[in-house]
């Protein structure tokens, strides 16, 4: 269970560029929730994910995951509990290292990294099987450098890396936004399969309202650093883009265009 209580975050405090990104955010996720997050630019979606991941500290508030207090924990220690995929396909993988080496790094998330082998043959078998489930042919290119892969392949690989050690919470920060529509659909399909298979608690930020409605069991909309809409259960299942537009008077061009 993820609990966010009374979170505040202001950037550039005390300057003309002061920006209150998160303003008293409260949110609770049950285990197994697959929550899609929508909202306009500057609504605080990515900031919320970065605060959970520990990229920067909160000004005030409490972050708790399955009873562990993450609030003051450094980013690399929180990684034990979290799987993350970023918007930028370059960000989630090491381009100059091989596919299997990247997976081996992810396989050791939350474990001690000592002087044992960085990758073993037994692991290679596991990686090969896991890569095969992506259906991208990466299982035959295990030693290729990740820098040679396309954006979609890299995002699929990052997704696999994020879930190789089952995370308590999966954070997807517009992970298909930089991909072409066809590739985006493929990556989303893989996302859904993995989330369903491992019953992962997931927060997925998206700018695409159709995707927000189509995926997950719960939808939240953020505005000015707070959750303003929270739809779940039956209501979520029957939701249409038109409903969302009418109900909540959305003015964001990008969300309208992506219908």
């Amino acid at each position, binding site marked *: 269970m993820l609990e966010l209580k009374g979170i505040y975050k202001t950037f550039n405090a005390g300057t003309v560029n002061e920006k209150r990104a998160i303003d008293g955010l409260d949110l609770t996720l049950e285990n197994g929730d697959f929550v899609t997050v929508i909202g306009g630019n500057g609504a605080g979606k990515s900031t919320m994910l970065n605060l959970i991941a520990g990229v920067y500290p909160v000004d005030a508030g409490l972050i708790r995951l399955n009873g562990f207090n993450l609030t003051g924990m450094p980013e*690399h220690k929180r990684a034990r509990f979290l799987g993350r995929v970023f918007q930028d396909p370059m960000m*989630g993988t090491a381009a100059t290292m091989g596919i299997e*080496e990247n997976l081996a*790094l992810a396989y050791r998330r939350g474990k001690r990294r000592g002087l044992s082998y960085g990758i073993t043959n037994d692991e290679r078998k596991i990686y090969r099987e896991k890569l095969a489930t992506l259906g991208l042919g990466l299982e035959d290119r295990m030693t290729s450098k990740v820098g040679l892969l396309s954006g979609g392949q890299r995002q699929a690989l990052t997704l696999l890396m994020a879930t190789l050690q089952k995370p308590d919470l999966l954070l997807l920060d517009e992970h298909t936004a930089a991909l072409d529509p066809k590739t985006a659909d493929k990556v989303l399909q893989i996302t859904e399969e993995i989330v369903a298979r491992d019953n992962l608690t997931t927060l997925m930020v998206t700018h695409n309202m159709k995707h927000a409605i189509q995926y997950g069991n719960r939808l939240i909309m953020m505005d000015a650093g707070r959750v303003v809409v929270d739809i779940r259960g039956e209501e979520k299942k029957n939701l249409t883009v038109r409903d969302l537009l009418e109900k909540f008077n959305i003015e964001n061009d990008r969300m309208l265009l992506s219908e």
Partner: protein
Amino acid sequence: MDFFSNLLAALPGAVAQGLIWGLMAIGVFITFKVLDLADLTVDGTMATGGAVCIVLMTSGVNVWVALLCAFLAGMLAGLVTGVLHTFMGIPAILAGILTQLALFSINLRIMGKKANMAINPDNYDLLVSLRNVKKMTLENPIFVAAVFTIVLIAVLYWFFGTSLGCSIRATGANPNMSRAQGINVDFNKVLGLMISNGIVALSSALYCQYQGFADVNAGRGAIVIGLAAVIIGEVLFSRIFRNFALKLLSVALGAVIYYIVIQFVLTLGLDTNDLKLITAAVVAIFLAIPYWKSKYFKGAGKAIAKAGAQAKGGEDNA
């Protein structure tokens, strides 16, 4: 004919010197290429290692113990730079400059406030010495330095294949991804700087034995020579040497080639006082080659273009 016989006579010395500096260049490779940090501490550590080694040996310490102490002293210098960079948030390049500056005073202290200290090969059991450079025995410094190079490459190849070593490579390749995968990026940077400077100090200790003296100014411009070796090795061998161990070897070969080139221009009659100028020019040209190739010859090998981009990226980050 005079020119060639002179060059030939000087060649063994250049190779020995190149191999010893090649160890140092491997240290530079670890920070500059693996960790993507420009570490200027080495200009200080390249004097520290020798100072520690010669002082200890002249006071009767065994040569291997002296080498180990030099290595540890180098690691300590790397630790200081690492702490300045990570804990105190000082940009890596500046942290290195600060440590390097401080090391000048420390090196003088180590040598009892003397600017240089001699060690007589007749009275001490040195591992490498200039006077053996043309002997066809196992004492030949070329042979000894080659063994050191091979052992060092083997150890580093093993280390960077371990879980810890892989996480250090990941730290240099993509710090964001590393943190997301639970890697303590700051710790790895400090560790990498320590290993790198330890190796540089080891090279320094061997070089001072080779020359027969330690000098407080021995490290001046060392980083440039180290970079020269790294870049020369990469430009010449990156197409054939892909494996990590072979990349390290290409760095060592780069240092040897560098010293042969220097010997060549010296034999041509250039003034030794102009050496630093020549070095800077050689490094500038070799740094520019991959950049030019990628810019003006689009099809000219991805590996080289990438190497150039990386070298450039390293500087930008610094």
